[in-house]
């Protein structure tokens, strides 16, 4: 009996690792500096979280089908650069700009998906190459100069409908839509099936190739949208924009419970909690004035920890279920 409750406690802890970590990290920074708890600081974390958060949602889709997308930072940059060029010649509404950037991202994702699902190349290599190609394209377009955007866009980014910053609104909408897609559509449930076992999914009659492909399109489109969020937030996009952000996005998704082995992960609460965790650490390190040179080390360390935890969790959960099978076979043998 005690063994059973210990087991269920373990299951609970492993299943809710992300929330426990978020609370722990948050409390740590509050202890180090009580001002961390201020409303202003919390809103800061929220607004800055939108960009990484939207990338993390897209990453969750790709991780669900046991893929990975390293090109998201480059795609966001490419979308921004192409957009700034377009805007020189064509006038466009704010919504138009958003849709166009999503479309650019979706095309980039479509190409990634084609290479992974049609040519069956490892997604790691595909998207690593894509990262270089897309960034190269964008740098060629921008001549490595800053890309500037009309003030009209910046004022939208600075607006606060109902007191909440616009980027945060966009993030919330993405979260809700993505969550509905994952939990309330056949397509969403099939993503989980494909990620658990593509061969079995084929046997079950699912269009595995199309589903795999679509995840990269979603990830690309959301990278484009994340680029839009940065554009309206900052108004200026520097050449180094988006570099390394794929790492933050993967970390956020994995910390939020997405498995690198596929088939496991959620947008709500998963990707949200993971994003908040990554962002809390980033802001917290600035807040507590950790040496600037140490910051990348600390965040890399946290990401490494996240992956270690993911591996441990997967193995541990597997063992918990396997033991049960053996026990029951033992009963059978009796």
């Amino acid at each position, binding site marked *: 009996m005690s063994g059973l409750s210990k087991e269920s406690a373990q299951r609970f802890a492993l299943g809710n690792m992300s929330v426990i970590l978020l609370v722990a990290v948050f409390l740590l920074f509050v202890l180090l500096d009580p001002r961390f708890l201020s409303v202003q600081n919390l809103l800061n974390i929220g607004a800055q979280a939108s960009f990484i958060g939207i990338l993390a949602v897209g990453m969750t889709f790709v991780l669900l089908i046991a893929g990975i997308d390293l090109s998201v930072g480059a795609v966001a940059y490419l979308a921004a650069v192409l957009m700034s060029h377009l805007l020189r010649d064509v006038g466009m509404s704010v919504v138009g700009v958003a849709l166009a950037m999503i479309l650019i991202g979706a095309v980039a994702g479509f190409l990634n998906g084609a290479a992974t699902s049609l040519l069956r190349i490892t997604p790691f290599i595909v998207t690593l190459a894509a990262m270089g190609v897309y960034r190269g394209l964008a740098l060629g377009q921008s001549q490595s100069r800053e890309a500037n955007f009309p003030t009209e866009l910046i004022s939208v980014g600075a607006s606060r409908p109902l007191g909440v910053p616009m980027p945060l609104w966009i993030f919330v909408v993405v979260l809700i839509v993505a969550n509905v897609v994952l939990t309330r559509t056949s397509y969403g449930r099939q993503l989980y*099936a494909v990620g658990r076992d593509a061969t079995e999914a084929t046997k079950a009659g699912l269009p595995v190739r199309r589903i795999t492909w679509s995840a990269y399109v979603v990830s690309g489109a959301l990278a484009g949208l994340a680029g839009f969020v940065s554009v309206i937030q900052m108004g200026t996009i520097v050449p180094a924009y988006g570099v390394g952000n794929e790492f933050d996005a993967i970390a956020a998704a994995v910390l939020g419970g997405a498995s690198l082995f596929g088939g496991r992960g959620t947008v709500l609460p998963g990707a949200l909690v993971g994003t908040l965790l990554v962002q809390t650490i980033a802001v917290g390190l600035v807040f507590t004035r950790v040496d600037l040179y140490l910051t990348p080390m600390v965040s890399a360390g946290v990401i490494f920890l996240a992956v270690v935890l993911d591996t441990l969790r997967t193995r541990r959960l597997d063992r918990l279920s396997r033991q049960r099978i053996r026990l029951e076979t033992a009963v059978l043998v009796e």
Partner: protein
Amino acid sequence: MTRESDPATRVSGIPAAVSRLAFAGINKSFFGVRVLKDVSFTVGSGGIVGLIGENGAGKSTLMNILGGVLHADSGEMFLDGEPYTPDNPKTADAAGVVFVHQELNLFDNLSIADNLFLRTQPRGVVPPFISRSRAVSRARELLDRVGLNRDPRLTVDHLSPGERQQLEIAKALGRDPRLLILDEPTTSLTTRESGRLFEVMRELAAQDVSIIYISHILEDVRDLSDQLVVLRDGSVVVTGPTNQFGIDGMVRHMVGRDLGQMYPDRKAAPTADVVLDVRGVTEPGMIKDVILRVHRGEVVGLFGLMGAGRTELARIVFGLDRHSSGEIHVAGRPVAKITPRKAIRSGLALVTEDRRTEGLFMESTVEDNVAMAALPRLTVGPGVINDRRLARLAQGAWENVGLRAANPRRQAVKSLSGGNQQKAVIAKWILTEPDVLILDEPTRGIDVGAKAEIYRLVDDLAAGGAGILMISSELDELLGTCDRLIVMRQGEVVREFARAQFDATTILSAAFGQDVPSPPTTPRRNGRERSE
């Protein structure tokens, strides 16, 4: 009606006009080996047909043809009198031919309801979205029919193996089968769960669903089916109403053949010197209180059905898996906390069941593979490999086993035939000069000639003073090569036969758990009594 000319009417039993399914003259060969020979039989509508046969008799091939996974070389199938030619599993499914396979096809990260309706989720009010409440209530109906009392929203990883099996059956019911094929559906079910399954099957039969039931548990087949079909070596040897057959009769029809001249005259003779001594080894849920001894010069066969615990025992003895109690002695010395490294050092060798994934480095050369396990013996000083000595010894080993390869020093193992790959594995272990060699299904998937050579090698090794433990599902080869035969069932050693007592029917009965009176040398079901 001019049905008389229809080939299906000529097959046994029920005329095709009233039959749900008819096989008519199905033939199938793999690489020139005929695995199905002119198979014809019918399944009546609403009938339950028991399909039995030994491993490799052709049951799976036949079912794969029925399910559209494979295509027959010749012959026809008729479903409700219409020609039935499934291109792939999907078309079979659409025709109402539904399979419940032995291995489950479930996604344990999804809920019960998601698994049931993965392709056909009930639609909600707004089209793209699914209605969870409807999915749940429809799932409940299906679960009720199989007697699985679980919340459909629960993810499958919370279910026991038996419950998963029930869910798999519920899934099949959800597809409105005309013909339901159950392949060993009870392996992970408790008696009560099996009982419930049988009720469901009878209800379905009463509702005009036809069922093909494949099982090694012959009592179930006897109690459940109304027609029996026995396959042996790819041919239907007998069909008829099940009540005409006793269990004995079933077994006799399944086995009925003489041993060929595949097997070498034995050079080796067992000595009194115990080289492997397994003393009451137990791992809960896998094997229970296994006691067995292998002597120098002896070839001991280990027989049992799939899942009887033979491979598990081999892995535990070799230290690949843990065991919770019991001792393992090799060449007179106990080996505590055995690991593969210790096992090899103390003189054990294991030829694993799956040479591709567990026995060889497929991309490496034949020479490297052969030398692999013996490397510690081939080094001079601190781990430097003596290349020339390695080459000489490896060559000796592969010549000894009769391995045929164009260039064993350069050629990757994956380019060899199955038989030659297996010889490479055996050569690898011969180089370590083992006292005990355990072979797990050493002749699976290799051709007849290579089989005979492997039997010869086994005999040679025994003659050289090694003890051999050979696991096989092919009873013939054990009868042909072994001095002694041990039968395992459900993780326990249940019977032991000396060569003089070898009798296929009795041995099979023991493996199936049948009560057939037998020579009284060893008490049944309890190894402990024997040792004391």
